[in-house]
């Protein structure tokens, strides 16, 4: 299966990563090879198989609905590349 340059551009847009033309070209080649390799899966009939949803035998736990953590705004802001005292700062979104 070939992953052409248009597909790479569309997927890159979805993934919010930008690439230059040269890189798109090489990615198209790499991904086409990788998808040819993956294509092998179409050899197996899986009509009667349910997709695996969890490899654990246990079901997800529930817990008592009480607050165990929180009130750590300053700690959360500590690692932000751009912030003021209360908020993350991002480029202007609304004109």
């Amino acid at each position: 299966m070939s992953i052409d340059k248009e597909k790479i551009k569309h997927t890159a847009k979805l993934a919010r990563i930008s690439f230059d033309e040269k890189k798109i070209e090489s990615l198209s080649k790499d991904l086409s090879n990788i998808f040819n390799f993956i294509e092998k899966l179409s050899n197996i009939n899986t009509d009667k198989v349910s997709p695996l949803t969890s490899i654990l035998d246990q079901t997800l736990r529930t817990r008592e609905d009480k607050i165990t953590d929180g009130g750590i705004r300053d700690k959360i802001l500590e690692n932000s590349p751009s912030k003021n005292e209360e908020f993350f700062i991002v480029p202007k979104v609304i004109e």
Partner: protein
Amino acid sequence: MSDITNKSLTQIVDLIKKKEVKSEEVTNAYINNIKKGKKLNSFITESFDNALTKSKNFDANPNYESLLPGVPLAVKDLFCTNGVRTTAGSKMLENFVPNYESTVTTNLWTEGAFLLGKLNCDEYAMGSSNETSFFGNVINPVKENTVPGGSSGGSASALAADLTPATIGTDTGGSIRQPASFTGTVGLKPTYGLCSRWGIVAFASSLDQAGPMTKTVSDCALMLEAMSGFDPKDSTSIDKKKENYSKKLTKNIKGLKIGIPKEYRVDGMPNEIEELWEKGKKLLKEEGAEIIDILLPHTEYALPTYYIVAPAEASSNLARYDGVKYGFRSSKGSNLIEMYENTRSEGFGDEVKRRILIGTYVLSSGYYDAYYIKAQKVRQLIKNDFDNAFAKVDAILTPSTPSAAFEIGEKKNDPISMYLNDIFTVPVNLAGIPAISVPVGHDKNNLPLGLQLIGKPLGEQTLLNLALCMESKSNFKQKIIKWWEKN
């Protein structure tokens, strides 16, 4: 005293408990080795001041009751460490200093160990040779110019070079077992859910599992005992009592049934690996185990399945790196979307971007059923293969890798040939079961080779016992000459 850093973790713990050596002496000995071992590039961040302070505190007020009393440990730089930067081998997290500690490292520190430094790894643990790290290649101490394997390459390199008495890695598709095999060390990937994932930088959440990397099988049992355990903060953590793996360790493997899957005999596998596999079978048989041929019919589909599931989960997990909350932010871009795109383009390396694209593609509208759902169905078949096999056998013996350590650059530009390196390790992650790589021999170039033992869910004790047997019978000895200490 002779060089303490040649000793195993278990021996060091014994010496500290018998008061024959002080924690500070041990710590200084490792710091000295790390300073001489810069050429290996196995450390991203050193934590010497912390280690020396903690060792002095231990010596002043020792507690010999814990499992790892006064032991300095370096860990893979994928574990968040409070106040010590955690990079995941990426430019994206070059300056990230967590203000919390991963559960697994917390468990180690609770048992008396302390942090010596953070070890290099492939970027976001995506790689099989430690060549994708933003902080540069790691060298295999076994031979200059060879890779230590990946993604826990820094961990394997530092361990084999005596720069840390033991370490921990993470294993999503072989990232503990393959580097262990390449460096002549022991590496164990536990059952999914045995060790908490909380505070580990995420790659593929349904596959990721932390585990010990050690010089001996006894060390491996000790480390697993210290790091494992139920954690309410990880929703997939298994709620069960902690096991005393080291106390229960025994070489008595009489009557255990060992499966040999013929599907692991792949084209182009060197004779030496075939011979090693035979040697392993013979050793276990001599100790009273029964060797049985088994089938794992969907083995050939494991890698294609993995290369859908792992990138799909990675693309979702790595969506969080947007330059807003933490990590790198690009200074370019006139609006929010451009800022995101530039941040992710500049912050991620090539392999990570490649996998994000694969993952985004297989999850995108129109392709989701054909790829992702298909892969999860095949994953079920792979798991069924193991369930059927374990109805007949107690463990499965295979080679750890299809080759010994390769040269730096050899596979770098061919993603598929790099991915094929994980052909024997990936099925285990897909099935969520435990496996251990044990060094058993060398190839004609004196490069170490390992065998893998695969176990039932929560069958770690059986694996450790079999591994202990194989270790003592194979009489494997490291052949490392410390070439990096010479000028």
